């Protein structure tokens, strides 16, 4: 049966395959990173004429895609595991905070890390318990393979062991949204909601607000000074023998111009954090 389909593929392909552009960089992964990567890619295309195809599918998906060669580059918003690091190179392209967001109409301004942890374990279920109104808390989380979720859980210690395998400790009753935008829409439309999203995607929005954590405001300044602890890196990864156009694009991201775009989009560039 493979033959039939293979033949079919060959027939369909033969006239068109040659038209396929050599100068396309493909990149897939974290939805948080793809938000800024789309802008980088478009600017790069305007500048050089080389197309950059960005697919926001989640960090783990990007790591898998880059490792098995489905795409040239992968994007991740979490650290790679040791298994995943074999035969790939990684590059930190930016830093980003994880913002705890609530609906604009909610008077709460600050939560401690311990409170956030308890909310996601559903040990705290009412805003009253954290200094708010007597209203239920609707916690919203990301799907299990989100890099943002992985880092969020790691930093807050929302992990437990089952059969010696580390798994998430977020209550399974928590609502799940896939994508920063879906989560944000849920918070924007629900006055009881609480969620965590990429800090870089908070700034332009008016319907949600980012909370201080342990009294530290969620700002880019506080993230790179290290005071705001809920932070992670944006990583680009690629196989060691990846094609030159992909490397050129990575170099562009690391250049002053690329890093400036990252700043403009509300994320924290590498240079800035070195200063």
């Amino acid at each position: 049966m493979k033959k039939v389909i293979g033949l079919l593929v060959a027939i369909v392909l033969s006239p068109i395959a040659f038209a396929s552009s050599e100068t396309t960089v493909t990149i897939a992964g974290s939805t948080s990173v793809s938000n800024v990567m789309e802008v980088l890619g478009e600017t790069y295309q305007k500048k050089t004429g080389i197309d950059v195809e960005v697919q926001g599918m989640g960090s783990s998906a990007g790591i898998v895609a880059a490792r098995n060669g489905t795409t040239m580059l992968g994007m991740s918003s979490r650290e790679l595991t040791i298994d995943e690091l074999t035969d790939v190179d990684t590059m930190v392209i930016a830093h980003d905070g994880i913002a705890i967001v609530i609906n604009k109409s909610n008077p709460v301004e600050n939560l401690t890390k311990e409170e956030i942890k308890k909310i996601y374990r559903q040990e705290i279920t009412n805003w009253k318990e954290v200094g708010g109104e007597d209203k239920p808390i609707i916690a919203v989380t990301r799907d299990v393979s989100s890099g943002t979720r992985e880092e969020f859980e790691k930093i807050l210690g929302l992990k437990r062991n089952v059969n010696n395998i580390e798994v998430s400790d977020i209550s399974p009753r928590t609502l799940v949204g896939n994508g920063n935008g879906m989560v944000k829409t849920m918070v924007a439309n629900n006055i009881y909601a609480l969620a965590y999203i990429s800090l870089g995607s908070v700034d332009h929005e008016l319907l949600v607000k980012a909370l201080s954590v342990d009294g530290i405001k969620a700002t880019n300044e506080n993230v790179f000074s290290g005071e705001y602890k809920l932070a992670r890196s944006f990583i680009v990864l690629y196989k060691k023998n990846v094609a030159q156009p992909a490397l050129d694009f990575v170099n562009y991201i690391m250049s002053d111009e690329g890093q400036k775009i990252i700043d403009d989009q509300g994320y924290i560039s590498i240079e800035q954090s070195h200063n």
Partner: protein
Amino acid sequence: MLTRKTQDKFLLAATWAAATVTILFLLWVVWHVLSNGLSFVTWEFITSSYTRIGEASGIWPMIVSTVYMVVLTLSIATPIGIMTAIYLTEYAKPGSKIVQVIRFCIESLAGIPSIVYGLFGMTFFVTTLGLGFSILAGSLTLSILILPVIIRTTEEALMAVPMSYREGGYALGSSKIYTIWRLILPSAMPGIITAIILSIGRVIGESAPVFLTAGMVTKIPESVLDSGRTLTVHLYKLTQELFSQNEWDQAYATATVLIVLVLFLNLITKLIATRYAKKSY
């Protein structure tokens, strides 16, 4: 007798109410989308490319990707579907083992949820065959998905061709394949075209099996090996990544374009069906 009459009245009222509810829901969905989206569907929105850096962002690449997907999927599935239908109606012995097996498989294919097609397409076409996230991988997946629709509808059209056509063809000494090609297929054409239009609707409407196989790149695909984002996937992606009012407007506008497209396709099917009905007299 009086209770029976009230019962009758009650049931009659219920049917009217049910029909009204159905229509109201349709009108509500359509009105909600159009009222929020129609004002943003400008010529510029339709013809400009999707951008994150400029102000005006459009859906032209998604329209092109959708067209690619439709054309490629149909050019794979239609010949296979029609030939299968010809085999089942004109060649195979009705009720034989092989016909039973083929029919069972087609019925089963029709029953598989589209997400399972996505799962399969992603493993088989994207990874195992190494096609990557591409229009081609998406089309191959969707081809299998729409095959049952094409086969069933074409079969019905072939069955409806009067026996006298076949007998007349053979009586004049033409070969079987000639009779099929020159007599049976042309008279079954309206039915076949209906099958194709139904399939177009299906290809446009699917989302999960499309983004799992064709990806979601917002550029005009240069070849069938490039990834592309269809209109439906674009709408899903927009709802997933809604950040600003501008993006809400884009989502509604995209939904509007989709509904208008479906309306248009239904209209064509209706036209063909009425012409067909007239012809058979």
